[in-house]
């Protein structure tokens, strides 16, 4: 371990170097980056902090406690797996922005004050948009822009929330904040910001839009960090906030229906991701020690098994050029290793005993019962069967089995296989030795996953759900894969956005043109005359204009803040 190293620093240096050098040196630097970062993290003891002075303002770049350490550790592991998976990629933009993106996520979860958190939040948005754009085709260019709009709105909401919160006398130091109360000023804006990034219902559509559109390697990075940073933020500031129980429950339920009818298997995984985050949000909403432990450990496991599933579909995309269920099938003969690794991810997410999902998801469900939320428990049990259907059966079945698609295919490059093997190994390892993960959780764990009842009832649920899928498929009731666009809430944003564009282009733009032609032509002419009287050097002009602009901006923010707090 390295003492006194801010873990984000290696990622900044690594990203710069990776965009300069090429070939083998770049691969080595990319690999070394998360390793050095991890050594830095391990050199930070519990309670350690990193502060810098910024224009007289003390910023706490890092404040280590059990929660932030666990997420930072997870992000280093996920970053390393991602780098290995993407080692063959020659796209400098992608690997450079990926390293910055991982660093931003680590910086955000380590942040010791709200200003640092906000900066990390914004960098997370910007760097990840570049990952989407780096695929550089028509779809990813358009999608990346839509993605960035959502991420920037999240950042804006966070900024407004922090400003109102601070103006009302709230502390900016995270250690002093504790749990935020939804009824105090500015806090709903902060929750909205987290909710956009976590994929709350109706705010979720960017996940479905973006993750199937990025490159095979890009999506592996994207899927690990943004939503889990939001889960960290929710667990940090909103544990026990009851509203989250309902929100989380909705997140576990609605995606499983879309997952049944969706043809693009990476889109199925995106719906699956919302469903899994739902379990975490429910746990955070319940807020007991068992529930929080469940939510956090499930976030940890989800990054690994969802990453593994996205990697296996990325491998399929890499060798066949598609992830559409209608085009795929029968690949197991040509990609046996990928098939087995995908099945490990499928078993983990379905919470099969001895795989990682089994030891974490059930903690949330047990906590729901302990707190007397019986209806919630029945709902989560139904959602668990749904997970098995789409992620446990549908993904591997349509890609590797089903009818033989006769597609040209072979195993992906060895670095991809290695990354998937590490992910699969961790899924099984945590499934068999959950105590090692439990020891890292925020609260002491008094929970035994491997009881006869839990193992047997889970097997009963999963086996009979599988039987049901088989029966429904054989009888032709199961909806076949179709090349279709399934409308989600996205339609409101995209059609709404077009309507807005039309309004701006037609009535507003025409009106403005008419206005400017008649009245406004005169005013600029007057201003020009005035400006010509001032000393003519451009720098002098800017020196006079800039403070005025800044004042105007500050006034605007101040007015907005007052408006929303009042």
């Amino acid at each position: 371990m390295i003492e006194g190293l801010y873990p984000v620093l290696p990622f900044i240096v690594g990203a710069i170097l990776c965009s300069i050098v090429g070939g083998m040196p770049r691969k080595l630097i990319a690999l070394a980056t998360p390793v050095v970062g991890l050594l830095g993290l391990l050199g930070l003891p519990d309670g350690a902090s990193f502060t810098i002075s910024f224009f007289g303002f003390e910023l706490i770049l890092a404040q280590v406690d059990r929660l932030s350490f666990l997420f930072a550790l997870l992000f280093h592991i996920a970053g390393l797996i991602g780098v290995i998976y993407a080692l063959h990629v020659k796209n400098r933009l992608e690997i450079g922005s990926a390293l910055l993106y991982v660093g931003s996520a680590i910086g955000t979860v380590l942040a010791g004050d709200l200003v640092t958190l906000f900066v990390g939040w914004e960098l997370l948005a910007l760097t990840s948009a570049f990952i989407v754009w780096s695929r550089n085709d028509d779809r990813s260019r358009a999608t990346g822009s839509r993605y960035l709009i959502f991420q920037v709105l999240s950042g804006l909401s966070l900024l407004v929330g922090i400003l109102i919160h601070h103006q009302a006398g709230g502390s900016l130091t995270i250690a002093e904040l504790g749990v935020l109360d939804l009824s105090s000023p500015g806090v709903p804006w902060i929750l909205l910001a987290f909710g956009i990034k976590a994929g709350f219902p109706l705010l979720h559509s960017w996940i479905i839009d973006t993750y199937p559109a990025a490159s095979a390697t890009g999506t592996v990075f994207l899927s690990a960090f943004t939503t889990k940073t939001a889960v960290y933020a929710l667990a940090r500031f909103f544990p026990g906030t009851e509203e989250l129980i309902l929100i989380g429950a909705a997140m576990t339920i609605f995606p499983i229906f879309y997952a049944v009818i969706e043809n693009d298997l990476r889109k199925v995984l995106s719906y699956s991701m919302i469903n899994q985050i739902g379990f975490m949000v429910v746990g955070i909403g319940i807020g007991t020690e068992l529930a929080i432990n469940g939510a956090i450990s499930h976030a940890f496991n989800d990054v690994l098994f969802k990453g593994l599933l996205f990697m296996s579909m990325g491998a399929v995309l890499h060798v066949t050029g598609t992830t559409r269920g209608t085009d795929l099938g029968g690949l197991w003969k040509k990609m046996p290793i990928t098939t087995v690794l995908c099945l490990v991810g499928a078993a983990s997410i379905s919470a099969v005993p001895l795989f990682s999902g089994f030891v974490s998801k059930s903690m949330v469900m047990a906590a729901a019962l302990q707190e007397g939320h019986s209806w919630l428990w029945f709902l989560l049990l139904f959602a668990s069967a749904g997970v098995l259907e789409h992620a446990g059966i549908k993904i591997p079945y349509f890609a590797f089995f089903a009818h033989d698609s006769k597609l040209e295919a072979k195993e992906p490059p060895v670095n991809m296989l290695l990354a998937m093997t590490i992910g699969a190994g961790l899924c099984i390892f945590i499934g068999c030795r959950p105590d090692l993960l439990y020891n890292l959780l925020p609260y002491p764990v008094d929970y035994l996953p491997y009881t006869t009842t839990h193992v047997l009832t889970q097997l009963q649920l999963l086996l009979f759900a599988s039987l049901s899928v088989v029966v429904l498929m054989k009888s032709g009731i199961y909806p076949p894969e179709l090349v279709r666009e399934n409308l989600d809430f996205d339609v409101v944003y995209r059609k709404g956005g077009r309507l807005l564009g039309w309004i701006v282009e037609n009535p507003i733009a025409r009106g403005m043109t008419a206005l400017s032609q008649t009245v406004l032509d005169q005013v600029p002419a007057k201003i020009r005359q005035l400006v010509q009287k001032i000393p003519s050097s451009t720098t002098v002009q800017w020196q006079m204009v800039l403070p005025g602009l800044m004042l105007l901006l500050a006034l605007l923010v101040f007015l907005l803040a007052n408006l929303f707090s009042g």
Partner: protein
Amino acid sequence: MSDPAHSSASRIHWWLVIACAIVFAADFFYHRHLEPAVEQIEGIPGFYPIYGFLGIVLLVMLSRGLRAAVSRKEGYYDD
């Protein structure tokens, strides 16, 4: 329909049926720990198998309805 893939699939189906029978029968041979909050329903023998099976039936039926409601031709947003 006598290709090898088909026969190996039906073999897996039979193993699945046997596994289901075993775990279903297990309910009658051990003392299942019940959660007090839901014991009246959870305690029904075969609760988990029935819930898992019917849960998927419900899921698939509702999904067919969802498809009827939201399915559009590919490229819907490109027009």
